[in-house]
């Protein structure tokens, strides 16, 4: 992973704006930001701890070539995807998408922050969903509950047991899914082939090794 980081750093030679434009999804929009700050003012998270830099500042840092600071920032991971900034941006910059685009790129090249809970959730969700071609809710919940060890997992499960029982009674939660692989998509091979092709196309488009 860090190979890829070095590879990219070498490729763009300090032109971080260009790197983001070519490598991060919707990154080509970063240059269009006019620094009005409406996005920052619209964010409902109100920049609670963890939000090191508001979106406007992130865009300015990209232009100023602050590669390490941007890629390792917690900021992009704090976005709750409410789309308020996106809707309000006078330049129609897809800010929410850019946030996710940069976050994804940082993860791809191994520069995302360690022990990032949003990253963990995304990772877990992706693995869960791509394994069988559909989301296995029981296993997803399980993985998230027991993320911090057995004791904390049991504690969380106990706290939620009424909800879980209710769901089981209503037929919305099948505990049998916890056993084995759970039920799968019909053409799981096809799904995997499709994902592999998508990855290949993306690599081709972005000029990097698949």
């Amino acid at each position, binding site marked *: 992973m860090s190979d890829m980081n070095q590879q990219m750093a070498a490729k763009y030679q300090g032109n971080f704006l260009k790197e983001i434009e070519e490598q991060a999804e919707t990154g080509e929009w970063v240059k269009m930001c006019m*620094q009005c700050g409406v996005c920052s003012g619209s964010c409902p998270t109100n920049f609670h701890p963890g939000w090191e830099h508001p979106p*406007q500042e992130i865009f*300015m840092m990209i232009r100023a070539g602050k590669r390490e600071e941007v890629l390792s920032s917690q900021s992009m991971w704090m976005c709750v995807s409410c789309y308020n900034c996106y809707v309000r941006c006078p330049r129609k910059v897809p800010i929410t998408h850019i946030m996710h685009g940069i976050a994804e790129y940082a993860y791809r090249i191994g520069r995302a922050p360690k022990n990032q809970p949003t990253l963990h959730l995304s990772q877990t969700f992706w693995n869960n969903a791509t394994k069988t071609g559909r989301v296995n809710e029981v296993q997803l919940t399980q993985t998230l509950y027991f993320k911090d060890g057995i004791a904390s997992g049991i504690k969380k499960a106990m706290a939620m047991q009424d909800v879980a029982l209710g769901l089981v009674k209503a037929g919305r939660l099948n505990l049998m899914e916890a056993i084995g692989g759970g039920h799968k998509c019909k053409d799981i091979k096809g799904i995997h082939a499709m994902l592999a092709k998508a990855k290949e196309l993306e690599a081709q488009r972005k000029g990097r090794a698949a």
Partner: protein
Amino acid sequence: MAEIKHAAYICKGCELGSRLDAAALVKVATKDGKMPLVREHDFLCSAEGVAMIKNDIANEGVTHAAICACSRRAKTEAFNFPTVAVSRGNLREGVIWIRPDTDEARETTQEMAEDYVRMACAEVKAMKVPEGNQNTGTSKTLLVVGGGMSGMTAALEAAKTGYKVVLVEKTGALGGMAGQLWKRIPNREPFKAPMDSGVADLVAQIEADASIKVYLNAVIAKTSGAPGRFRVDIAVESGPTVTEDIGAIIQATGFTPYDVNKLGKLGGGQANVVDQLGLEALAKSANGGAIKRADGKDVKSAVFVQCAGQRDTSGEHLSYCSGHCCATSVKQAMYFKDANPDVETVILFTDLRMPGNNEDFYRAAQNKGIVFRKGEVSNVSGGDTCKVQFKDLILDEDTSTDADIVVLATGMVPTTGPDLDQLSEANRAAEGGDTTAKEQVVQMMSKSVLNLDYRQGPDVPQFKHGFNDSHFICFPYETRRTAIYAAGPVRRPMDIAQAQEDATGAAMKAIQAIENAGLGKAAHPRSGDLSFPSVRLEGCTQCKRCTVECPFGAIDEDEKRFPLFNESRCRRCGTCMGACPVRVISFENYSVNTVGAQIKAVDIPDEFSEKPRVLILACENDAYPALDMAGMNRNAYDPFVRIIPVRCLGSVNTIWITDALNSGYDGVMLMGCKHGDQYQCHFVKGSELGRYRMSKVYDTLKGMNLETERLMDLEVAITDVDTLPQKINDYAAKIVEMGMSPFKGL
């Protein structure tokens, strides 16, 4: 001369008949107004009513008519009788519309109306029909000084309407600053790329136009005369001096860039640090290819520093924004990007100003990859690799960047003549024998653009930051010299598109001025006015107040040091009349007498009546319309005020105030426009001069043992419609509290 016959007309329309006792008004006009002919009519402005007045003029020999109906600002077309003197008693907007229709109010409302009838009768008796200025000019030729974008546009626009133009350009070629540009900021769709400046096309049009005479390498040696009959000496380099007869003048002398060498901290004067004009030169020599530096090296990175020596708060450099430089830097960054997208271009700004469609231009620049950073530049060092140190205002950190070339966005310095105040100061010192002052005068005079032989100085007065005076709030091209108009960056910083619009507007105003001068009529803002000031020289004490105070330089001095009026230069504001301490200056239809007679005509009840009288002298341009509009909105105000419109606060002669207070008025209120830097006075300096004069009256009041509050100066804008009645009421209440004037019945 035909015999004088006065007549008064009382209108009963618009509820005047039901709200007022018309029979009593007729009696007042006959008895107090001493009008030999008084008629009432149910609908005076109707065809029938007007025909009645016309019949009286034709068959009864009426020469002076007091029309007591609505405001003088209403029904001006119906009551237009050019052969007779007309005064207007404002019974509608001034009385019934500002009074409640109640039984209690009836008595004071009627008294108010009767006073306005008395005033109208008294005023018309003191009036004469203006004969018009006989001293008219006949030249219809326009002089345009400056052959840049503004000058060429003004010349072409005037020529297109059929006027002859003389165009004088200091340098050897037309084009001015715009001619030095590689390309211009786009002014039409899609606003995405720099455009051809269009200078060559304009030059070709001018050369092909037979009605435009161009003098290159020429300056104005002398301008004498007045609108419609200026005599202008044009000194052509290594040639004879030519004299042209000129009707009106447009000064479009433009600007020079701020001296970049004064910006040492920003690398001014160092290698590879240029101003915007410097970059245009490099772009021109690149001719569309990659721009190279002066040393021939390729440019791989360029940094643009905005507001270089502009918007400076330290007082060292220009304090203003030149408006065009943000868009110009964007344009220049595009020169680099369009030739080679790999050139790094950074624009360092504190506030980016891209007005109008320039927003699209800005977007296009971002799309082309020009980087914009909000930063305050502290230091630039030139050399083979330039270094720009700045504080990033978004990231809040001090940082720096390297560049092959740095472009400083310096501001516009207007090409105006000497500052008239400084010049007259130096002149005074020189007259006192100061030799350095003498040299100073010579040096300042060498800067003169128009070389006017006006008493008030060789050029148009300046306003802020050395820019040519222009009436920025209402009439952008008007200077304080009639028929001399300022257009383009000489009057305020602007870009090409604005300058062209400016030039077109100024050309139009100049044509108006020429035509008005030819008819002996006043130019704006009393355009069409045929009256002009005349002076009774026998009474003149040569105090020079009129010549000094005239905001328009209309009055010179003759060999015997008497005032010499140039009627065509006059705007009819009456400031000279207000200034004259011996009251020998008057207009036919507006004089110390016309207003004085109205003041005297008002019936002053005795001090036990509990009916005070407050005189209001209201500026006819702002305060009086505001009062009329208050009437239209039925905003009631105090019935004890009597309002007389004046042409300008500057025309108020202090005698009116002392006379009013002496004859028993309890208070005098002056309503004039805002003065100072943010002035709103139609005559620029009128309200300021008027106020200065009034400040002297306070001493007189003390001498009379009167409270100084009995004179009140109120700043009124035309928009004060809703607040004005309250202000009047407050003042009237204050007068009641103060008690009646002790001068009643004396």
